């Protein structure tokens, strides 16, 4: 029976991708080989599309890496209790750590590995973007695998699904919705960190990679308003375009991967439902996205099946994460023991406190604005879908795009303190709003009707029904915002704009000064370590218990 293997596009697609990657890689590599104290990016607007392409390539490479590794680690954590005990705490800690602060260390590492070659800078940039995309994807994979219906997993085993077949028929389809949902978050994060990763400074050395992020940053720093607006326009148009032409169709396609009777999975986002009415989007979904998605699942399944066949290096990877943490700790130790203490170290506790106040303020303001806004959104059944779609697109605009706006406000004299909090809010607010709005939509209709029947309206409804119903999600949103807030501090407490430096006292500013201006590694390490410790301490002693109590008391159960 010489039955020919069915033609498969996955091999061709893989080849095309490989060739593309090599070409892009060579090109990036060559352009990176210029001396990296590169003076300035060519500011001609005609080069913007090229810069955008560079940035997109970095984001895409980082994203593919993140997805691949998320699948491997997530599945490993779900399958093996031993791996789980290593992976989950590591992810948890690394997720709650402000990534921006680790940039200089990572850059030093990569540049060291490549002996100062500029390819190292490129690698560092991709790595930094990767770190902003990875954690939530891995958690998403893990969570959707452990919530897989038990009998389905048993059926897969009983009917002999193993290796590649198990990946393509069971695991990959089961994680698609969560992967997609988290991809939106990951890309938003990626755009957010793009600027920070394309201009990398360690002490006096400054490396600039050509890209949209560096272009924008340079335009702001030098104070060229015209170019700033242009770059912002490109940035916003790209994120909005990706929503309409990529994520929307993907979400519509992914509807078939949802389980019917399970409330705790991310449901089809509203935006997808709104977009689903568009003819263009539906056509795109049918003709391009759906077949490509199927092929991607088949190809990924083949690859991952091969990986599963040689399972040992998955375990090696699980060991790698904690091991690298250990190395970092040793390096820090060496840094402090071998050198005299820098005088700046004494100021760190006060810096930390000031930043803590700012982050806390940001959390409180986000929550205070989100609750009434979510209520208003949930009440107006007519605009709900459209409003959410608009909000989602707005939220995908990276907060760094608000930089110029803040600078204008600064020139008007709102004060650096207010500006820092405001800038932080542009990232923190969305996390809270999304969580609260999602929970508000999920309030069962019967409960609303019962409340109406009992005469609960207005503020009474808010207090007795609405707030308790959204409380668990509010806490989740606040925890995420709290984490994002610390990243924002590193970005916001120290700004360079129009050849002027705006700064306010805080741990972010101290870290930035030590990184970009003075280059005292001791201060970098100390402020980072103290910040991480404070965050983990507050997470464990405040957020965890609060969340547990709230979740227990206010969870929606039939």
């Amino acid at each position: 029976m010489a039955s020919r293997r069915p033609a498969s596009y996955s091999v061709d697609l893989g080849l095309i991708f490989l060739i593309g990657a090599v070409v892009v890689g060579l090109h990036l590599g060559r352009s990176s080989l210029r001396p990296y104290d590169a003076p300035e990016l060519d500011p001609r607007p005609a080069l913007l599309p090229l810069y955008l392409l560079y940035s997109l390539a970095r984001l895409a490479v980082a994203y593919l890496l993140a997805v691949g590794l998320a699948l491997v680690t997530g599945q490993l954590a779900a399958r093996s209790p031993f791996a789980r005990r290593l992976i989950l705490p590591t992810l948890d800690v690394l997720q709650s750590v402000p990534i921006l602060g680790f940039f200089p260390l990572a850059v030093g590492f990569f540049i060291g590995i490549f002996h100062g070659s500029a390819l190292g800078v490129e690698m560092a940039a991709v790595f930094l973007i990767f770190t902003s995309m990875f954690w939530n994807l891995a958690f998403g994979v893990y969570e959707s695998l452990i919530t897989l219906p038990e009998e389905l997993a048993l059926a897969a085993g009983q009917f002999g699904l193993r290796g590649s077949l198990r990946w393509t028929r069971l695991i990959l389809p089961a994680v698609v919705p969560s992967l997609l949902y988290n991809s939106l978050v990951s890309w938003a994060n990626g755009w957010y960190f793009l600027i920070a990763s394309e201009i990398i400074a360690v002490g006096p050395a400054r490396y600039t990679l050509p890209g949209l992020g560096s272009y924008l940053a340079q335009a702001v720093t030098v104070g060229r308003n015209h170019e700033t607006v242009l770059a912002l326009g490109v940035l916003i148009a790209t994120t909005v375009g990706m929503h309409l032409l990529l994520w929307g169709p993907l979400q519509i396609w992914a509807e078939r991967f949802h389980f019917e009777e399970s409330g705790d999975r991310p449901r089809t986002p509203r935006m997808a439902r709104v977009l689903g009415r568009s003819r263009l989007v539906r056509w795109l979904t049918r003709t391009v996205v759906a077949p490509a998605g199927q092929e991607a699942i088949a190809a990924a399944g083949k690859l991952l099946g091969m990986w599963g066949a040689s399972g040992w290096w998955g375990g090696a990877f699980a060991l790698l994460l904690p091991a690298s943490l250990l190395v970092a700790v040793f390096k820090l130790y060496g840094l402090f023991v071998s050198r005299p203490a820098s005088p700046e170290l004494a100021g760190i506790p006060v810096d930390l406190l000031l930043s803590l106040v700012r982050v806390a303020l940001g959390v409180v303001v986000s929550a205070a604005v989100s609750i009434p806004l979510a209520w208003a959104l949930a009440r107006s059944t007519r605009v709900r879908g459209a409003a959410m779609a608009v909000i989602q697109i707005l939220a995908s605009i990276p907060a760094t795009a608000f930089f110029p706006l803040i600078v204008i406000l600064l020139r008007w004299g709102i004060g650096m303190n207010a500006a820092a909090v405001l800038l932080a809010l542009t990232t923190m607010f969305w996390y809270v709003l999304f969580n609260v709005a999602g929970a508000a939509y999920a309030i069962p209709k019967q409960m609303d009707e019962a409340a109406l029947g009992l005469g609960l309206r207005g503020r009474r409804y808010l207090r007795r029904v609405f707030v308790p119903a959204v409380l668990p999600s509010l806490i989740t949103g606040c925890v995420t915002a709290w984490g994002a807030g610390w990243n924002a501090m590193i970005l916001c407490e120290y700004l360079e704009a129009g050849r002027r430096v705006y700064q306010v006292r805080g741990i972010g500013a101290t870290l930035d000064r030590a990184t970009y201006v003075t280059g005292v590694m001791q201060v970098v390490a100390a402020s980072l370590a103290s910040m991480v410790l404070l965050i983990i301490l507050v997470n464990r002693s405040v957020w965890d218990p609060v969340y547990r109590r709230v979740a227990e008391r206010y969870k929606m159960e039939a």
Partner: protein
Amino acid sequence: MASPASVAAPAALLRLEGVEQFYGQKIRILGPIDLEMREAEFLSLVGPSGCGKSTLLRIVAGVLTPTVGTVRMGGRPLKDVNTRAAMVFQSFALFPWLKVVDNVAVGLESRGLPPRERLKKAQKYIDLVGLSGYERAYPRELSRGMKQLVGLARALAVEPELLCMDEPFSALDVLTARTMRELVLDLWASPVVMTKSILLVTHSIEEAVAMSDRVVVLKANPGRIADEVDLRGLPRPRRPDLPQVRETVDRMYALLA
């Protein structure tokens, strides 16, 4: 029940030897169980919830390894998934992202059948359970009864020597459940279907009496075999209002009480 002892006993298809299942280190939830199942036998396991009947079925299907004891399938000890058995699940356990035909073909795919034969065989069993015309539908578009028909077709399609059914009708409404029971008995009697040995787990005594050759009654804490009733003398079809059937059901209720 008088069993025709003169008939030479067919070879044992399945044999459980001292099977025990522990929860953690100390708590025994099942066993020790010794049980034999003949070729072409319809055997039911009944018992109260918590007696471990579903656990026992999973051990037989090879998706759960017993803490102690051996499962022999055709004389050979079972080490991994029981590829000579196929399972029908209470909650159907269909892959929501696969069409009916792909769901039915899943077991054939993993057994390495080429696509065309896969399709042909899947189609045969889809037709047998009466789902012709629904091949391209997704499970979410089907009623519960139809979903379980897909589950049944999927299990039969691999042409297993042993069909394991875990409370297959308990998620269905009364009427659908009755139709499904009749369908299973018809298929069991039909020469077109290869599978002749069925192991059914149920909490319904009426169901067990209506369908099986032999009923094994389990009791809980830990799950043990309490009794065994041979029903081969009970003529088929067994309508529930026949005096003989009613009497048997009553007797078994007394056993369980």
